[in-house]
């Protein structure tokens, strides 16, 4: 039992979870409105779009790459789907299928460019982000779509669980299932951990990369649809510029930029950490202008602490070896 606890204390998601619990207790004591069901429903609903995107980005990070283009993919798919729905009508199934198709295709383009141009993923996805978003702005001239169909914008909460939260839950469970139960998920961990070894094991590298980036695009497009449902309009530039926020949440959750490391539970906790912090500060009456400052300190403290522990453990293991 003590051994189990000793090991649990060193796990990243346990540490983040403990910090989240402490914050919940802290804000709960200071502000009476914080620990209420209504507040939590709001909080989850607000961060559900981010959670769906984070699920996709997590898979790319585990595969050893990085995706900067997913918000642009979300914006493009959102616009395409909304245009089709407004012109031809449709239903939720059509909306999600189309969004998934557009998102996965745009994401797979990233993977093909990265593989065949042997280019680094940051550079390729920055280029495609610039390209996708600029073309979208060129075509739309920045005009929004307001006349979305009624079925699309109507409230779909079930047992008072908001629709975006349901989609986010499905997305996270699906990601968990793929990463932990399917061969392709385990292969993606292998690819991120050691690409050369994965190649020699016979993994189809280009296929795995297409899946990872395609999945990121797929989730981004789904998130785009959910966001359009939430705000009842499609604004071409509404999503862009928040790529690094989502990246921060996933990294807070313990995913490594070197690849091979990352969990769905950690990602959920990373998002919860940011969500609880910002929501708690709002309820305490702290100005929303201070969020950036606080978030920055949290990111710096978290990544420094993680790296420092890793460094110390490495030194200890070397000393043991000697």
């Amino acid at each position, binding site marked *: 039992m003590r051994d189990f606890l000793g090991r649990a204390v060193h796990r990243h998601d346990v540490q983040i979870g403990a910090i989240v619990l402490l914050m919940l207790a802290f804000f709960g004591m200071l502000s009476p409105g914080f620990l209420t069901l209504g507040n939590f429903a709001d909080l989850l609903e607000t961060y559900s779009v981010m959670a769906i995107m984070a699920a996709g980005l997590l898979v790319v990070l585990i595969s050893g790459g990085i995706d*900067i283009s997913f918000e642009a993919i979300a914006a493009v798919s959102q616009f395409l789907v909304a245009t089709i729905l407004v012109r031809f009508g449709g239903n939720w199934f059509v909306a999600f299928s189309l969004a998934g198709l557009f998102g996965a295709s745009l994401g797979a383009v990233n993977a093909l460019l990265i593989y065949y141009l042997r280019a680094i993923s940051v550079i390729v996805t920055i280029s495609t982000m610039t390209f996708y978003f*600029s073309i979208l702005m060129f075509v739309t001239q920045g005009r929004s779509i307001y006349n979305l169909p009624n079925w699309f914008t109507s409230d779909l909460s079930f047992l008072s669980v908001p629709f975006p939260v349901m989609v986010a839950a499905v997305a996270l469970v699906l990601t968990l299932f793929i990463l932990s139960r399917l061969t392709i998920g385990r292969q993606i961990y292998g690819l991120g951990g050691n690409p050369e070894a994965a190649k020699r094991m016979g993994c189809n590298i280009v296929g795995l990369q297409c899946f990872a980036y395609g999945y990121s695009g797929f989730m981004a497009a789904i998130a785009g649809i959910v966001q359009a449902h939430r705000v009842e309009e499609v604004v071409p530039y509404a999503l862009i510029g928040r790529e690094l926020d989502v990246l921060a949440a996933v990294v807070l959750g313990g995913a490594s930029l070197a690849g091979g490391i990352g969990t769905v539970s950690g990602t959920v906790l990373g998002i919860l950490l940011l969500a609880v912090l910002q929501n708690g500060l709002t309820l305490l009456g702290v100005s929303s202008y201070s969020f950036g400052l606080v978030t920055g300190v949290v990111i710096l403290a978290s*990544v420094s602490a993680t790296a420092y522990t890793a460094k110390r453990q490495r030194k200890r293991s070397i000393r043991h070896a000697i």
Partner: protein
Amino acid sequence: MPSDIAPSPAKVSAPRSTSFPLSDPTITMLGGLIVVAAAIFSALAPSRFLSGDTLRAIAFQMPELGILSLAMMVPLMSGGLNLAIIATANLCALVMAAILTHLIQPSTPPLIIAAVIVLALLAGLVTALGIGSLTGAIVAFFGVHPILVTLGTMTLVKGTSVLATSGTVIGGFPPAILFLGNGSFFGIPVSLMLLILCAAVVAVILSHAPFGVSVRLIGSNERATRYSGVATEWVLVGVYVLSSLLCWVAALVMMARFNSASAGYAESYLLVTILAAVLGGVDPFGGFGRVLGLLLSLLLLQVISTGFNLLGFSPYLTAAIWGITMILAILIALLRDQWLVRFLRPSPAESAALQTRNPEP
């Protein structure tokens, strides 16, 4: 940098010369692309593209992005990245702007104005030094990946700017400051001179100073550099301090051009600076790159944007073309490397002949 997978054969780099710029394939390629782009625009809009106005527009627009790209290039050469450059430049500009606007009244005598300007410049410099040392220290002594650290410092620094200004704009500076952004000296914009000065300093540091050599060595192989006796931690701190100091210069140019400072200026430049540096031949894994290549890539991007502007295209289309240019440049470099490998590798018959001529002992 995340570990990307290159299919076999292993990545082969073209030979990189440090002696003569024209023998560097990246420089030749960029020069060629600039000539092609300029020729196309001259053919499409002969009277307007080949004019003094076009040159002046390019000369006034390049410095801002150029100095920021230099600030991105230095960490890239060390195998890192600085996502906080825009936020740093904005905070420096805000600190200087706050001092200038609070201490200078219309009735202030000129001598005091000069003193206040010096004070403001120093305050901006100290801000940049502080941010750079913090970033560098976390990268070097905790061993955190630069993307993560600078993601944090970017959020923190921008958060500080937003909190301090509540999202407002601070404006109205003395003419001496405005001269930096809009003035000319013998027909050459002062801001362009600042860019050239910064570029020259960075070029000399990177290619001739011991510090610069250490930076490039760290970019190639950090551990080997440390084992060969270089204090890599302090060099890394220096990298981010130098990057932040360049942001301070960029802040001056930005303040002068906009006659104001805010927490949110020039944010769209962040990713463009990475594009410009990589297009200019800076290896995103670190170790290789030339300032001349960066300047040429900036010129290429600026020629494309000015030309499209003259032809009446939307600025969004220009940005889309920038993205495609980047992909194309990667493609050209890849094809060139493959061609060089085929060209340089002797055929089986040749190697057999070599073997008989120089028998192995």
